[in-house]
């Protein structure tokens, strides 16, 4: 059996918000740490760091995941989307972001990037989701401020 020395850093090639990145990361770092510390994308938030709160939600090859429960190394060759990539041109807010502002669907804001990424995935896959479906879809995202109703209303507003 091997007693391992401290593992060397590895090079990660991945696409984040449409841009190819080559990052030097520790092999045991999560995708959350990779995005925040190696890629400098601090929109993705750490909440519980154990998969309960959804604050670190990002899209990985089109599926939402808790980035705290993914190793950065697993993103090799994959497409990652964070809250920074939601606004279509980086200037105009996405309809969801605008609706969150108009419906006051945030207070402290820590959970908001995760909610936006999850809600965008819902609108992309089920644009006509009813309230029950929206609540089910967002069950993996916790908010300790607003009590959810405003968030649900914002998602419904963004549905048009």
């Amino acid at each position: 059996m091997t007693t391992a020395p401290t593992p060397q850093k590895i090079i990660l090639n991945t696409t984040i918000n449409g841009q190819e990145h080559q990052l030097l990361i520790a092999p045991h770092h999560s995708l959350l740490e990779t995005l925040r510390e190696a890629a400098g994308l601090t929109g993705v938030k750490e909440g519980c760091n154990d998969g309960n709160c959804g604050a670190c939600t990002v899209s990985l090859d089109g599926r939402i995941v808790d980035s705290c429960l993914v190793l950065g190394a697993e993103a090799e060759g994959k497409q990652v989307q964070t809250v920074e990539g939601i606004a279509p041109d980086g200037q105009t807010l996405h309809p969801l972001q605008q609706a969150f502002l108009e419906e006051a669907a945030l207070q402290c804001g820590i959970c908001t990037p995760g909610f936006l990424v999850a809600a965008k995935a819902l609108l992309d896959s089920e644009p006509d989701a009813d309230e029950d479906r929206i609540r089910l879809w967002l069950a993996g995202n916790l908010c300790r401020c607003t009590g959810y109703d405003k968030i649900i209303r914002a998602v419904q507003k963004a549905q048009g």
Partner: protein
Amino acid sequence: MHPFQYLAPTSVAEAVDALARYGDRARALAGGTDILVQTRTGRFDLDAVVDVKRVPELTALALGEDGLSIGAAVPCHRIYEDAEIAGLYPGLIDAASLIGGIQIQSRASLGGNLCNASPSADGICPLIVHYAQAHTAGPNGRRSTPVEEFCLAPGQTVLGTGEFLVSIELPRPPAGFGAAYQRFIPRNEMDIAVVGVGSSLTLNAAGDRIEAARVALAAVGPTPILAQAAGDSLVGKAPSIDAFREAGELAADAARPISDMRGDVNFRKELVRVLTRRTLTTALERAQS
């Protein structure tokens, strides 16, 4: 977290080599929803994490004449999003669509749920009542284990050093088969089962007699429990609420719950009675449809 290496083998043989080389200091990584949390909280210190998702067999999901083969790393969403699988294996779908939230279902696998061997696992009872076999590979080759014999204690399985789960195989259900899984939780979503029950039954061609039945229990013992007497009590009988109630009593006898913050012994036994009756009722409806 203890720093570890990330290894991504592309064949079963390479994965066995990697796991065997590091022994207790390595774990297989499928969806990561248990192992990364456990590693972070210091349940074990690892020198290597072996990502098995690049091994084609581990991510294969194949429905054939003989049944369904689920690669050990196939995430829950791939199972419930397949309409044909959903129709044939309703007990699995109940579990795959209630484990965690959407984010967890994107990653978590039934194979990982089995290897994690939590007494409250939602995925294991449905596998048992669908008569599933676990196929593993290790330094001594391959072997198969009935899922009801796979878990030995909380967090402990039959897996030896260097051995890992490759796939889970479920026979194709006969005509007249139905199954269901339900759990009790105080919330609507994202919770750990206080009690979970999976049931299945097979009706004869006329639909008036039960030919085979299984009841399996979660969170009422150190491992998931196949309540053999409960299932056997139904064989040869006409399906009825009285027969289901009696099976519920026998299932409660087989339960060995502890009292903790989520429920005491009597409450958990009562939940076993109720959920056995309800899951058998749903299984019957599905067998008849």
